[in-house]
């Protein structure tokens, strides 16, 4: 009996040790010239590429093979202020031209091709499957913060279960501004600006996850900078904090979390990161603050 118990204990110790032996490592940092330093106002993940939109109306494509290309968004007027970027399952790219106007960008030419008048303000824009995921301007406390609609049928609205607008606080403040990360299949991770937890939802069923920020001094205003789901139980999380070298906040620590079997890995990023570009179960590509592409992998 004692030998059996010892054997089991030894086996478990080895197993746990094997799990804990995994770590995150930076394997590649490329510095393509084409990624602009301007503020990123939208990110969209399509099947072969991740697209970034900046407030200077530049559209950047980062292909999954690492190639980067850039084009200016054309067809915009002097009063247009593009915000948000969403890639639907049919490959079309959408942005908010103004608070009440949706626009489609031709991803080959960068030209703004379509404008759809919404008659209602939308603050943020994301995508899940064939629907746009967005937040209206005046979220109602106690109700769902996010909604979905097809791009060309803006009134076919469904509420998105998950984030519920908190009661109290500044109506236009960070506690009510929803942010969404990279979705997988029909699941999207979303959180409020200053929250330390996020929800994973398919629009009908959701669950809330505490971000693993206990071990660090996270930024109070944007503790979660980005989340990329890789399955219903695994994700990468970019945590915000003060970048001592640059004297401003950015993504300073990258977590990779699996829930089953439980595994929580992290790496401190130097240089720090602006946003996640793509992620798989064992690999994550980030855009660093100095314009580089950083690849982080899980090593056994």
């Amino acid at each position, binding site marked *: 009996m004692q030998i059996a118990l010892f054997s089991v204990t030894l086996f478990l110790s080895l197993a746990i040790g094997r799990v804990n032996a995994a770590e995150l490592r930076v394997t590649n940092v490329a510095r393509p010239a084409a990624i602009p330093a301007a503020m990123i106002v939208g990110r969209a993940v399509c099947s072969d590429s991740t697209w970034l939109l900046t407030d200077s109306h530049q559209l950047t494509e980062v292909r999954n093979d690492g190639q980067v290309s850039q084009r200016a968004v054309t067809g915009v007027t002097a009063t247009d202020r593009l915000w948000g970027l969403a890639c639907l399952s049919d490959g079309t790219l959408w942005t908010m031209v103004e608070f009440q106007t949706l626009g489609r960008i031709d991803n080959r030419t960068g030209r703004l091709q379509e404008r759809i008048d919404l008659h209602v303000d939308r603050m943020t824009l994301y995508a899940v499957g064939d629907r746009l995921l967005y937040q209206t301007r005046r979220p109602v406390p106690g109700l769902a913060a996010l909604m979905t609609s097809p791009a060309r049928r803006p009134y076919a609205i469904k509420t998105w279960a998950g984030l519920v607008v908190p009661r109290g606080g500044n109506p*236009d403040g*960070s506690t009510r*501004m929803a942010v969404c990360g990279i979705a997988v299949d029909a699941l999207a991770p979303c959180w409020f*600006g200053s929250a330390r937890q996020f929800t994973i939802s398919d629009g009908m069923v959701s669950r809330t996850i505490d971000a693993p920020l206990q071990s660090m001094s996270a930024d109070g205003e*944007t503790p979660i*900078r980005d989340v990329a789901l890789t399955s219903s139980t695994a994700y990468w999380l970019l945590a915000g904090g003060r970048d001592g070298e640059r004297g401003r906040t950015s993504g300073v620590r990258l977590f990779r979390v699996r829930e089953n079997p439980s595994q929580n890995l992290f790496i401190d990023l130097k240089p720090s990161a*602006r946003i996640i570009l793509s992620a798989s179960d064992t690999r994550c590509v980030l855009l660093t603050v100095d314009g580089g592409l950083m690849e982080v992998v899980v090593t056994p």
Partner: protein
Amino acid sequence: MKSIRTFRSVALPVVFLLALLVGDSRPAVAEDGELQRCQSRRLVCYFHAQFKDDALSAMLAFFECDYEHLNCVRRHIVGR
């Protein structure tokens, strides 16, 4: 009436100076306390809006302040 004119002539330049100092002179990249900066800019904007010539202009100016504030918060929270 004269006191109102005097108030405008003194207050508005001060408000503009404050707006420049607190707001637009700082870099667009988000920094700590950016949300407070957004709120300060909105208050300055509101203050300015109430000096519009008529009620409609004032109301539109207030709406514009709200949009600017929303954009400011959005840049900080969602922009990267």
